[in-house]
């Protein structure tokens, strides 16, 4: 459906996209995540043929999409896009949604029927006659979504579709996306800042950073095997610790972490200064005797901070260095943890990731590139 290679985009000398390669199949749901300013919107605009890339090849729906305007128009007619800040026309809700259908010269009855069902789909049934500009933020967002859906595109681009939506509406929209892809074979590309949303509905996730995909793979892979340190930080590896590589053998590294020895699985050979990373939920917490069970990496420490996150709790354990662990509230109650509690924290070698520690790489974040 979409074959993009080496797409670049430069605005007045500033490079925003820097050689994006992407290939998406029919019916796939592809999620783009990445920090603000990474180029997500820019990429979607190029794929929806609203902007031309400064450089690169682009094939969409089997046609070369870098050519004449008439070809681009033909392709564009088979796609639609929900913008990050959707424009709502100052007309009725009905006229807003019917817009794309009228452009296609569809008969009035069919327009009415389709608009009605699109509005139902996004949870705004019966609002046809309302003035669109008077809707609430979330209602407008859903209106814009209905407007993009109603033309039944073969490819659908959604730039942060669940912004402004309440949890229930967000679920409805997510379900709709899944249904479209499954039942109608609609190809969907969407962006989000909610990784779990991506995980829930996308077939693959691409992490866009500094105008380039750092990693494209299935959600679990990205959540647990980030390609590099920045991705790890981005996907929420709460524990990122400086360590030194002592030895490496058959994919297992022995590291020195502030004097403690730890084992980590590491695909690539490691050496010198590294970062070792693991998720807070990979940390098991126990009290009392040293656990005998499998995890070879065990640290003893004190609880120095507890912060709630819905039904979960993040606790910070100081054991020379700080480790963040995540528990269910129930587990915490059962362990009777409190600030100052002495605990054991253990992490499996397979949950640890090791990345080369190129100087200040750990500090580099998306927003600081300006």
């Amino acid at each position, binding site marked *: 459906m979409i074959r993009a290679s080496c797409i670049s985009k430069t605005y007045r000398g500033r490079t925003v996209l820097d050689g994006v390669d992407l290939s998406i199949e029919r019916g796939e749901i592809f999620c783009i995540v990445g920090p603000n300013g990474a180029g997500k919107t820019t990429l979607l*605009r190029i794929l*929806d043929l*609203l902007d031309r890339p400064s450089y690169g090849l682009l094939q969409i729906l089997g046609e070369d999409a870098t050519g004449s305007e008439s070809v681009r*128009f033909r392709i*564009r*007619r088979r*796609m*639609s*896009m929900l*913008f990050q*800040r*959707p*424009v709502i*026309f*100052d007309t009725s809700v009905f006229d807003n949604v019917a*817009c*794309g259908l009228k*452009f*296609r010269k569809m008969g009035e009855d069919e327009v009415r029927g389709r608009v009605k069902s699109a509005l139902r789909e996004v949870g705004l049934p019966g609002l046809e006659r309302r003035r669109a500009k008077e809707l609430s933020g979330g209602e407008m967002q859903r209106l814009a979504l209905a*407007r*993009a859906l109603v*033309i039944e595109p073969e490819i659908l681009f959604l730039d942060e579709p669940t912004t402004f939506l309440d949890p229930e509406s967000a679920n409805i929209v997510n379900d709709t996306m899944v249904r479209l892809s499954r039942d109608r074979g609609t190809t969907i590309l969407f962006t989000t800042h909610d990784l779990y949303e991506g995980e829930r509905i996308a077939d693959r996730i691409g992490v866009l950073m500094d105008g380039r995909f750092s990693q494209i793979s299935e959600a679990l892979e990205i959540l647990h095997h980030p390609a590099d340190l920045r991705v790890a930080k981005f996907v929420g590896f709460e524990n990122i610790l400086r360590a030194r590589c002592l030895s490496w053998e058959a994919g297992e590294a022995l590291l020195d972490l502030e004097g403690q020895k730890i084992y980590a699985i590491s695909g690539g050979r490691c050496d010198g200064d590294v970062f070792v990373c693991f998720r807070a939920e990979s940390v098991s917490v126990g009290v009392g005797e040293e656990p005998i069970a499998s995890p070879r990496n065990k640290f003893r420490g004190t609880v120095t901070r507890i912060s709630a996150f819905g039904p979960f709790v993040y606790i910070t354990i100081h054991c020379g260095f700080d480790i963040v662990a995540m528990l269910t509230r129930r587990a915490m109650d059962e362990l009777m943890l409190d600030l100052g509690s002495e605990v054991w924290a253990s992490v499996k070698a397979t949950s640890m990731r090791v990345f080369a520690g190129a100087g200040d790489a750990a500090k580099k974040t998306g927003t600081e590139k300006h």
Partner: protein
Amino acid sequence: MNEIVEGFIEAIRLIVTLDPEVLEITVRSLVISLIATVLSAAVSIPLGSLLYLREFPGKGAVIGVIQTLYSLPTVIAGLFIFLLLSNAGPFGFLRLLFTPAGMVIAQTVLILPITTGLTIAALSGIGREVRDTLLSLGATEYQSILAILGEARFAICSALLLGFGRAISEVGAAMIVGGNIRGQTRILTTAISLETSIGNFSLSIALGIILLLLALGVNLSLALLGRWHH
């Protein structure tokens, strides 16, 4: 200041008695200027849209020239059309000099820069996002223009109102091209100018009031049309 009061009284008298000559020139004024406005809309809306949409070298210059032509004196516009339509000119054979048709041409030319320039301005008031949205919804270039024009409808209407105002109130071009011939090409402004030149100030003012009432009528109709359409 008596003349102004007398002008009002005279205006009322002319309207109430439906003075046939005044009626005739009023209708002629209205028809000529309305046709000129419609013609210039027919040219300037597509032209303005094109100029707004298309990027080409020298676009800024073209727009600058259009804005400069806001200052085109009516006499010069009239003279220009006169030279074209005069018996000795290239289009003399059309025999349009001293006819209402010739006046329509002159007024159209006169207001074209204004309506075109203001169309561009009206469209520029609509952000780029609107256009992107329309394109991504599958609009052809033509459809997207129509929709943008729809969003800018109030501004466009007021541009046309302004054009109409300029057309119906101008006298230079109408005088030169029309000749102010009684019963044929005399319109309100040329009549006003004639009455002023013979010192008939109160009649001038009366005719001016009638002209403004006419403009008010056009305004109201447009407003009603707008509401009705809405």
